[in-house]
């Protein structure tokens, strides 16, 4: 008997809690807090975070949630889930593949970015320009599976034709790691574990207090195209389009310029 009484008491004391919980849920539905979920390449972290404050100021009921990772990893995630509204990749290929698969739609190029060479800010760093890259004792670059790594391979390929057939082989012999995203390359160079690395200029600019930036000559360099597409099964298609519009707007583009991105129209040989 005793236990039954106690159980009833427990049930009664739980009731208001449950009621409160259900009520709370309904209250949230009224004000309609919505989540815009953006999957974006890790090199977009800072500029997108900046833009999200602008976006949330325009849409007070919306919360922008990001998933930053390597472009290829994001693509794989999108192929196996439908939990995003917008995809922003660091190249054209991955986004185009998602559009072909019917997962995304409306591909636009919204910014470009230039790879550059970085060196640690230590007094004994003796590298003065890109052609001295093979003199670095240890080099860290992106993996060939991710856009920055593919761009790096293209740059080395082009440099090889001009700087001599040994250039590429000498650089490859010094590579100690091929990281899966730009931030890891940056981390390893800024910690001094590598004497040189190749990252996007925007990432290098954000770490100017830790790394020195050396230009890659235009004749070797490639231009990374950032592409944006909305998910065909987006939960908030209107918000997704608003996000794309903000990025392409004059205000949005000026934020990109401030972070060191180049406009999409820029073309390189």
């Amino acid at each position, binding site marked *: 008997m005793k236990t039954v009484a106690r159980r009833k008491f427990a049930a009664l004391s739980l009731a208001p809690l449950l009621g409160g919980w259900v009520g709370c849920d309904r209250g949230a539905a009224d004000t309609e807090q919505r989540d815009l979920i953006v999957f974006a390449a890790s090199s977009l972290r800072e500029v997108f975070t900046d833009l999200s404050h602008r976006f949330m100021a325009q849409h007070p009921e919306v919360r922008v949630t990001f998933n930053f990772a*390597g472009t*290829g*990893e994001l693509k*794989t995630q999108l*192929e196996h889930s439908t939990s995003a509204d917008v995809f922003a990749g660091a190249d054209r290929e991955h986004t185009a593949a998602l559009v072909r698969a019917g997962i995304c739609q409306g591909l636009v190029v919204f910014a470009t970015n230039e790879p550059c060479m970085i060196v640690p800010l230590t007094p*004994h760093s003796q590298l003065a320009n890109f052609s001295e890259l093979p003199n670095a*004792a*240890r080099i*860290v670059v992106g*993996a060939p*599976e*991710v856009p920055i790594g593919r761009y790096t391979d293209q740059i080395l390929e082009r440099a090889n034709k001009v700087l001599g057939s040994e250039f590429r082989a000498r650089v490859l012999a010094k*590579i*100690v*790691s*091929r*990281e*899966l995203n730009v931030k*890891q390359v940056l981390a*390893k160079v800024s*910690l*001094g*574990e*590598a004497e040189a690395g190749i990252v996007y200029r925007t990432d290098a600019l954000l770490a100017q207090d830790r790394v020195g930036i050396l230009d890659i000559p235009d004749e070797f360099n490639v231009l990374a195209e950032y592409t944006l597409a909305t998910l065909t099964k987006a939960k908030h298609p209107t918000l997704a389009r608003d996000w794309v519009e903000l990025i392409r707007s004059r205000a949005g583009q000026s934020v990109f310029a401030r972070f060191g991105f180049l406009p999409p129209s820029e073309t390189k040989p």
Partner: protein
Amino acid sequence: MKRINVGHRAQTFALGVLAALLLAFLVIPIGCLILGTSWSQFWAGLGHPLASPALKLSLWTSALALVIVVTLGTPLAWLLALGRGRVSHLVETLVVLPVVIPPAVAGLALLLAFGRQGPFSNWFSEERGSLALTTSAVVLAEVFVSSAFFLQAALAAFRRIDARLLIVARSLGASPFQLFFRIALPLAGPGLVGGAILCFARALGEFGATLMFAGNLQGKTQTLPLAIYTAMESDLRAAQALSILLLAVALALFFGVRFAERRSHASVEGRL
């Protein structure tokens, strides 16, 4: 009487439903991984350029990590098992700490300790740099994350030894080495083997600390888990095949542990 039985059955059923939910959740992903990969995909995946160097590197670095852990860890576990004071209690807590430290944290800690900004950086020439981003770093990361698994098992195995045996041996004049090699090791043997297998399995699966501390270079630091992560960027089917390969090795090790455990219990019972 009958009502109680019905009630009992309902309660058992309720417990069974809860248990089955977790069981299903644990089994379904592994099932999907295996069933979602056809034989031809599996073979193609094994032929993927990332596969063979990564498998070789994983096996030999894990084996080396195991040798280091067993050589240094067995005496440590034995001394801890003998120890009764607060110091040994504290040390015991310290050595199992890596079990609860997230691998990414371990990787960052290793990078700061053995990297160029760490206290040992002047041991290395400017040219060599540091231990970070080398194959040695892979082994160190594996030792760091896997040693606790061996130590825990070894400690338990040593503590199962009947204390009276040690007292008798000491009274007959056995030296500390004789005690360790002639009595402790043979009696704790199966338990140590089980711990060693767990340690090897953990080293083989190590990912986070390796990624941060050792980097990702084929043939040098790209172990099987890193190759799976790298393959995810371009070719999911290769990642699946590599995952199944790692799973097969892990399962083989798991049954090895089971076998060692059974022998351990049998031998303890046999001796009592």
